[in-house]
C-alpha cells in the first residue's frame, strides 16, 4: 500500500477509537488522513471487557493485514460512572483533609449517601494545614500527625485522597503530604491530590478527589481488558483514555485520574461531530433512543459547565462538558393528544414503533411520516396523521428552545446532528444557520475518541490589577506543562481557553483564573 514506508517497516498510522457507552460499544479505525476505514456498533456487556473485546475484534478483522498499521488506541468509557452508581469494584479510600483548625465544622464525606460512603471511605481525617486566600498557611503541615493516620490505614486503604484548603492556588502542602504518604505506604497505594482534580469549593473538590481515589481499580480493570485484547492480537500499541473535556490522557495519567473519564461520552460525541463536519464552532445534537444531548463546540472543544455536577448523590466540581439533555429521541412515545414523551420505548423500538409493525406511536413514526429518515416500513394509520404531525411541530419547538438555550442567543451557528436518531432533526430549525449531517455521525463518539488532543488546565487566584498579566503568563506555562505531562507534543501545545471571574468582598481586587492548554499527541 502507498502508506507503507520503505525498508520493510510498516507505518503505524492508524488509530482506533472506542466508546463504551451504557447501551452500545462503538469502535472506529481512522487513517492518518482521518478517513473511517472500519467501524462497528456492538452491545455493551455487563463486564465491559467482553463487549470491548467484541467491538475491537470486529474492527480489527475488517482491517485485514493493515492491523499492523495500528499505532494507537483511544478509549472513552462511562464505566467509572456506572461503577459509582452501582457501587461496584470501588476501592477503600483514606480521605485526608489539610485545613485544621479551619473546616472541622463539616468532616469529609458527611453529605454522602450512607451506602456509598460505607463502600468507599476507610477513614476520614482533618489534619493541620491548608492556606488562606492570600497564600499564608492556615497551619503548617504536621508530618507526625499525617504519618500516624497513614500508619493507621496501612493495609486497609486501597488509595489516599488529599485535599488542602485553597490548594488549587497553593499546591505545596498537598505535594509534600503526597511525598510523605509515598514514604509511608510505598508506590502500590495510589494518591489523589485535589488540586489536580477540581476547582475552588472545598467540599465539592474533596468529593471529586475521594471518588477519584476509589476508582483506581475500576479503571485499571477496563485497561487490563483492553490490554488483553490487544495482546491477543499481538498488537503493540499506545493506549489512551478520553476525558471529560474531549481531550486524551496517557494511560498512566488516566489510571491516576479515573474520575476525569466520567463525562467523556458526550465530550467525544461533540469532538467527533466537529471532526466529521470540519467545524470548530457549532451546536451539537446527539440524538439517541430516549434523549437528545445538546452540547456546544467552542474553538474546537466542548464548552464546559459552570455549575457543579452530582454523581451518585455526591456534589462535585471538576470540569464536565455543558450538556442539555432533552427527553426526546427516536423511541419517545407520542400520547393520544400529540403530547411528546417523556416516556420512551427505548431499545424496544424495533418491536414497538408503528413503522416496525408495533402498536406504539413514537417519534420515529412521526419523523418518517414527516418525510424525515427512511420511508415507513408499515404505513402509519391515517387516523394518527394529525396527532403525529402535531407531535413533530411540538418536538421541533422543543429542539428550537434547546438550541436557543445552548447558543446564548447567537443565531448564526450551524447545528451538527449525530447519533442514531439524527434524522429527527429537521433541515431548518429556528436559530440555526444550517443543519449538517456528517457521514458516520452515528459513531461520532468513537471518532471523537480517536481524534482527541491532549490538554492541561490550571485554576488559581490572581490579582485583578498590577501583576495580572504576569500571573496569566505563569498559569499558561503551568497549563502547557500539564498538557505535555499528559502526552502532548511540546511543539504543538497552545493555550485554548482563559477564563477570568471577579471575586467579591476581598480587600484587593482578585480574579479566579482558569487556563487550558491543548496540543496534538507527540510522535510515537
Amino acid at each position, binding site marked *: 500500500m502507498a502508506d507503507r514506508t520503505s525498508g520493510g517497516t510498516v507505518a503505524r498510522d492508524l488509530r482506533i477509537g472506542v466508546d463504551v457507552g451504557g447501551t452500545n460499544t462503538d469502535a472506529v479505525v481512522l487513517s492518518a488522513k482521518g478517513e473511517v476505514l472500519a467501524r462497528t456498533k456492538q452491545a455493551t456487556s455487563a463486564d465491559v471487557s467482553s463487549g470491548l473485546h467484541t467491538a475491537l475484534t470486529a474492527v480489527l478483522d475488517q482491517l485485514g493485514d493493515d492491523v499492523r498499521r495500528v499505532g494507537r488506541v483511544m478509549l472513552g468509557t462511562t464505566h467509572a460512572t456506572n461503577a459509582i452508581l452501582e457501587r461496584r469494584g470501588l476501592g477503600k479510600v483514606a480521605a485526608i483533609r489539610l*485545613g*485544621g*483548625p*479551619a*473546616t*472541622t*465544622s*463539616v*468532616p469529609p464525606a*458527611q*453529605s454522602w449517601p450512607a451506602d456509598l460512603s460505607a463502600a468507599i471511605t476507610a477513614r476520614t481525617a482533618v489534619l493541620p494545614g*491548608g492556606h*488562606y*486566600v*492570600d497564600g*499564608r498557611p*492556615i497551619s503548617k503541615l504536621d508530618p507526625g500527625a499525617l504519618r500516624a493516620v497513614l500508619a493507621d490505614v496501612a493495609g486497609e486503604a486501597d488509595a489516599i485522597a488529599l485535599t488542602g*484548603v*485553597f490548594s488549587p492556588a497553593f499546591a505545596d502542602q498537598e505535594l509534600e503530604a503526597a511525598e510523605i504518604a509515598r514514604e509511608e505506604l510505598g508506590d502500590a497505594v495510589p494518591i489523589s491530590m485535589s488540586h489536580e482534580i477540581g476547582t*475552588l*469549593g*472545598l*467540599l465539592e473538590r474533596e468529593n471529586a478527589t475521594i471518588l477519584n481515589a476509589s476508582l483506581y481499580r475500576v479503571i485499571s480493570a477496563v485497561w487490563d481488558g483492553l490490554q488483553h485484547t490487544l495482546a491477543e492480537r499481538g498488537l503493540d500499541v499506545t493506549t489512551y483514555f478520553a476525558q471529560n473535556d474531549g481531550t486524551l490522557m496517557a494511560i498512566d495519567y488516566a489510571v491516576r485520574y479515573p474520575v476525569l473519564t466520567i463525562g467523556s461520552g458526550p465530550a467525544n460525541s461533540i469532538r467527533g461531530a466537529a471532526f466529521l463536519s470540519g467545524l470548530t464552532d457549532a451546536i451539537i445534537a446527539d440524538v439517541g433512543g430516549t434523549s437528545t444531548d445538546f452540547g456546544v463546540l467552542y474553538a474546537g472543544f466542548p464548552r464546559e459547565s*459552570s*455549575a457543579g455536577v452530582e454523581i451518585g448523590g455526591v*456534589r462535585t466540581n471538576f470540569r464536565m462538558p455543558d450538556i442539555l439533555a432533552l427527553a426526546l429521541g427516536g423511541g419517545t412515545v407520542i400520547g393520544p393528544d400529540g403530547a411528546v414523551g417523556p416516556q420512551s420505548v427505548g431499545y424496544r423500538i424495533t418491536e414497538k414503533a408503528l413503522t416496525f409493525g408495533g402498536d406504539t406511536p413514537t417519534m420515529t413514526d412521526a419523523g418518517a411520516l414527516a418525510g424525515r429518515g427512511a420511508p415507513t416500513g408499515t404505513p402509519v394509520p391515517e387516523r394518527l396523521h394529525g396527532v403525529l404531525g402535531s407531535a413533530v411541530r411540538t418536538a421541533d419547538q422543543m429542539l428550537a428552545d434547546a438550541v*436557543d*438555550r*445552548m447558543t*446564548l*442567543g447567537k443565531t448564526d451557528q450551524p447545528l451538527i446532528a449525530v447519533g442514531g436518531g439524527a434524522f429527527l432533526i429537521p433541515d431548518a430549525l429556528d436559530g440555526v444557520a444550517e443543519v449538517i449531517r456528517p457521514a458516520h455521525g452515528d459513531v461520532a463518539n468513537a471518532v471523537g475518541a480517536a481524534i482527541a488532543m491532549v490538554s492541561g488546565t490550571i485554576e488559581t487566584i490572581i490579582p*485583578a490589577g498590577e501583576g495580572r498579566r504576569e500571573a496569566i503568563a505563569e498559569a499558561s506555562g503551568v497549563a502547557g506543562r500539564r498538557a505535555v505531562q499528559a502526552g502532548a507534543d511540546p511543539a504543538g501545545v497552545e493555550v485554548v481557553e482563559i477564563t477570568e471571574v*471577579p*471575586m*467579591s*468582598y*476581598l*480587600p484587593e*481586587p482578585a480574579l*479566579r483564573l482558569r487556563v487550558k492548554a491543548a496540543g496534538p499527541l507527540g510522535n510515537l
Partner: protein
Amino acid sequence: MTLDDVPALARGCAILGTGGGGDVETGTLTAVRAIDEYGEVPLIPLSEVPDDSLVLPLSGIGAPTVAHEMLMSGEEPLLIRDEVERILGRPVAAVMACEIGGSNGVGPVGWAARLGLPLVDADGMGRAFPEVQMVSMYVAGRPVNLVVLADVQGNVTTVRPIDGLWSERISRAVCIASGASALMADYVLTGAQARGAVIEGTVSKALAIGHAVQEGADPLGSLCATLDASVLITGKVIDVERRTGGGFVRGSLVIDGTGDDRGRLLRVEIQNENLIALEDGRARACVPDLITVVDAQTAGAISTESLRYGQRVAVLSWPCDPIWRTERGLATAGPRAFGYDIDYTPVEELNHG
C-alpha cells in the same frame, strides 16, 4: 428545628436572599452536622426571651468564595458566646439570625445547635443586605455597643464601635486580617431591647416558603401565595452583565417576556442582590422591597451569580418589613443608599396604583 427542616429552611432563605446572601449549601451541611452532633434546636418567639437575658445575633462576614473553600472550625460560636457573657456579665438566652436571606439564614441553626441554645424566630433584615449597618436594630436606633468576631484559628476580637457604620468599617478590616472570613455577633441586645427592633417571624416564614416550593403541585403559585408576591414578569433571560466595583459584583439582567408577557422587557439592577426592577425606564419595584428571580417551573431561587442567558424565570416582588419604609430605614437601605437616583415607592403602589 429538626434535620428535616434544614433543607426547607435553606430553600426559603435562598428566596429571601433576593439573589445574594451567599450559597446556602455549605450552611446547610454545617447545620445538619451540628444538629446531628448536638441535637435539635427549639425555635422560640421573641416573647419567650426574658427581658434581661441576651439575644446573640450571629452572621458570617467575608467573601462567599472564601467561605465556600475555608470552612469554619465550628468552635467560633462558643468563643463568641463566652466573650459576650464575660463582658456583659449575663447569660445568652438564644441565638438570632442577623439576616435571614442566603447562607446567613441557615447558618444560625447550626450555631444554635453547637451552643445548645434556642433560635429566636426573627432576624435583623427580613431579607439579605450587603453591609453590617443595614439591619433593623440600626434603623430602630439600638446601640451597636459590642461587636465580637471569631475566626478559624480561635482569634477573638472585641470591638466597641460608636455606631453601625464604624462597625461595618472595623469589622470588615478584622475579617480581612482573619483571611476574609469570620463569624461575628453585633447588636447584642437584651430581650427588652430586642423587642420592636427586630423583624419577627422570619424563620418560620422562610420555612413556610421552603415547604411551599417543595411540596406544592404548582410551586410558583404556592410561592406567590405564601409571599403575597406580584409576578413582575415571566420570561427568558436574554442578557446578563456583571462587573466588580467597591467589593461588590454589580450588573444587570434583562428578561424578555413570554406567554402573556410577550413583547415586554424587564431590567433588574444588581449589586450582589437584586435591587431595582425597571420597565420602559420606570421602576416596577425597588429596594428595600424584595425582588427575587426564580426558576419558572421549580420556583427555586436563582442567585445573581448563577444567572445565565436562556433561563426561563419569573421575577417576583413583595413588600419589605415596615421598618425599612421609615425615613431612617430608607436612608439606610433605600435606592439612594445604593447609589440610585430614584425615590422609593412601595411595590404595591407601583403595580396596583
